[in-house]
């Protein structure tokens, strides 16, 4: 997160154009090391390119969503990015009331109709563009890589809270590992997620619960671990350090190797969720007046999701791994390798 710093002189300068992009966070705030932050960075990047100010508003609770949107409307925003499924309802409402404003909704389809049960694959309001990410696909690759990398044959994962945006990673990870096991006829065990339920720290704070959950998983002889949920990966980092063993970690959302240099020693790879890029593009399109309201679903195919390079582990993973991953990726893209997640069930 570099952006907030150079905001300091934003207020005094007159806007270069009268385009006003805005963004509302969910209760996690823009420094959640996850979707709020990436969404913010993407929107900010677009705003900077236009030379305009981005109006960011944070929410403290779900009570704040609607009023925050309202006050942004009052401020004359042209495009409003809303982050998280929690904002879906408020976004729909605001969108209905303000058909001239363009909305970008991250991580929810805004679908379900009046009664919440009529799914037509489109956002319920025509001026909402949903940004969705089938991260299970990317996590599948990560699971495959982890299974290949693991020497103990045990890999683990844990999440902050059992929310679908969290468990979708765990789902793909497990499927990928199982696919590997089947293909190679090896025994690979996934600890911490059984396809339905698993280990959770009970929150998205980087605290002892996060560290301890990681330790418990490591205690099961796991040597690759995937923590899912904002800053809880920091707990895994600590647990790895304390274990004194060679354990690799897999990051989520962005390339952890880049965003947190402290992790460079241990990140095997990261599961990328292209929120920054897609938000950037959506805001940019809005600023250039060629906004479209087609739901965006990030997949391996459109590079909306993916996995990061192995960086320091480049020479530790098996030689054929990268090419195998490319094959698997192609398989997923052409549908020959099915990956299930809540987005396509």
């Amino acid at each position, binding site marked *: 997160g570099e952006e907030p710093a150079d905001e300091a002189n934003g207020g005094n300068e007159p806007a270069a154009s009268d385009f006003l992009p805005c963004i509302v966070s969910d209760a996690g705030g823009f420094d959640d090391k996850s979707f709020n932050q990436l969404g913010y960075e993407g929107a900010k990047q677009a705003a900077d390119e236009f030379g305009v100010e981005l109006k960011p508003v*944070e929410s403290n609770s779900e009570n704040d969503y609607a009023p925050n949107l309202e006050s942004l409307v009052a401020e004359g925003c042209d495009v409003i990015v809303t982050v998280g499924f929690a904002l879906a309802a408020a976004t729909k409402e605001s969108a209905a009331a303000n058909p001239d404003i363009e909305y970008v909704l991250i991580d929810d389809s805004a679908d*379900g109709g009046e009664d919440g049960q009529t799914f037509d694959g489109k956002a319920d309001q025509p001026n909402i563009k949903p940004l969705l990410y089938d991260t299970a696909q990317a996590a599948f690759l990560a699971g495959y890589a982890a299974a290949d990398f693991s020497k103990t044959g045990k890999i683990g994962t844990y999440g902050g809270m059992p929310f679908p945006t969290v468990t979708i990673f765990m789902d793909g990870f497990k499927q990928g590992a199982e696919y590997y096991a089947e293909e190679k006829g090896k025994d690979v065990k996934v600890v911490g997620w059984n396809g339905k339920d698993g280990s959770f720290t009970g929150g998205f704070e980087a605290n002892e619960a996060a560290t301890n959950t990681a330790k418990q998983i490591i205690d099961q002889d796991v040597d690759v671990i995937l923590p899912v949920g904002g800053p809880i990966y920091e707990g895994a980092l600590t647990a790895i350090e304390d274990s004194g063993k060679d354990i690799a970690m897999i990051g989520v959302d962005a390339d952890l190797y880049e965003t947190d240099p402290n992790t460079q020693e241990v990140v095997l790879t990261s599961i990328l969720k292209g929120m920054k890029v897609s938000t950037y593009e959506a805001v940019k399109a809005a600023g250039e007046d060629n906004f479209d309201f087609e739901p965006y679903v990030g997949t391996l195919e459109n590079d909306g999701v993916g996995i990061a390079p192995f960086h320091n582990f480049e020479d530790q993973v098996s030689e054929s791994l990268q090419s195998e991953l490319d094959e698997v990726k192609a398989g997923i893209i052409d549908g020959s390798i099915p990956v299930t997640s809540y987005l396509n069930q």
Partner: protein
Amino acid sequence: MIAATDDAVRESAGYLFAAPTDFFAAVWEAVWGAYTALFRGAVYNDRVDDFATQIRPLTETLKYSGPLIAAGLGVGIGFRAGLFNIGGRGQMLLAGAAAGYVGFKLDLPMIVHLPLAIVVGMAVAALWGGLAGLLKARTGAHEVITTIMLNWVAYYLVLWALKQSYLLQTPGSANPKSLPMKDTAILPDLLGDRFNLHLGFLLAIVAVAVMWWVMNRSTLGYRIRAVGESPTAARVAGIDVGRTYVTVMLIAGALVGLAGVNQTLGTTTSGVTPDLDAGIGFDAITVALLGRSRPLGILAAGLLFGALKAGGFTMQTSENISVDLVLVVQSLIVLFLAAPPLVRAIFRLPSKEAK
């Protein structure tokens, strides 16, 4: 201009360690400037022309006050009986979830549906609060512990229910969110569509009136006060202290429950979520204390807090004051309001120097 001062805050924050005084001066200026924004967001917006929009902030304040008042009453009645109910969060969550369940699941005419949803929500919360009361009466378990723990239990319970499609989860969706409320279960708007103010506020006012009567006029209130002031004397006077604790916690739960109901059926009708309490359960403690646990005091404190909340949005969006500083400003206001002698001391200081 005010925006500029806030930028000054940010700038000085950058070199905080070099010149802390600059920073705090900037904060103070920003805080001062924030008041106008607060006022504009909470009471009366002088920047627009038509009357309805001008007073809209006031209606927003009232909307936010509703649950704060109701929950404040729930915490306050506990204090009157000598019980510290930190369980607002759990009680609200369960109330909201239960009311929400009735609200989206059943098909009934409004005249039945809405009251039923409200009553079910309040009843569930009452039982949850009553549980803490019962534990206290039966085993002596301290209500501070049990209510804190029950908050978490309620939270995970609701979270779990939100994953079960036969309970709260929207069928076909994976998100922990229920269906939106049916129209027949939504608290109607009081001033028409243009305003968000809904019946929940009136219910809270009714609760204030009822509580005022109960605490000041009824024998039940008399007994509650007696138990709160002197459990020993109350016991000798034939008042069953344990039973009174249970009664109080039942009522407290129901009142806090009203706040939860207000959330799902009034403020955010789009469905039950695990965050529906929105921190009100904890704010209610301050509201109750600031209102000295008296119904009318709680009404006033609730209105103040409602204004702080409503004004906070304007502070954030139009003055670029970060939501975190909004919290800071709010807590400073409460602290200084609670300490009139300190405020006097601060303001007397210059006059002394003048002499």
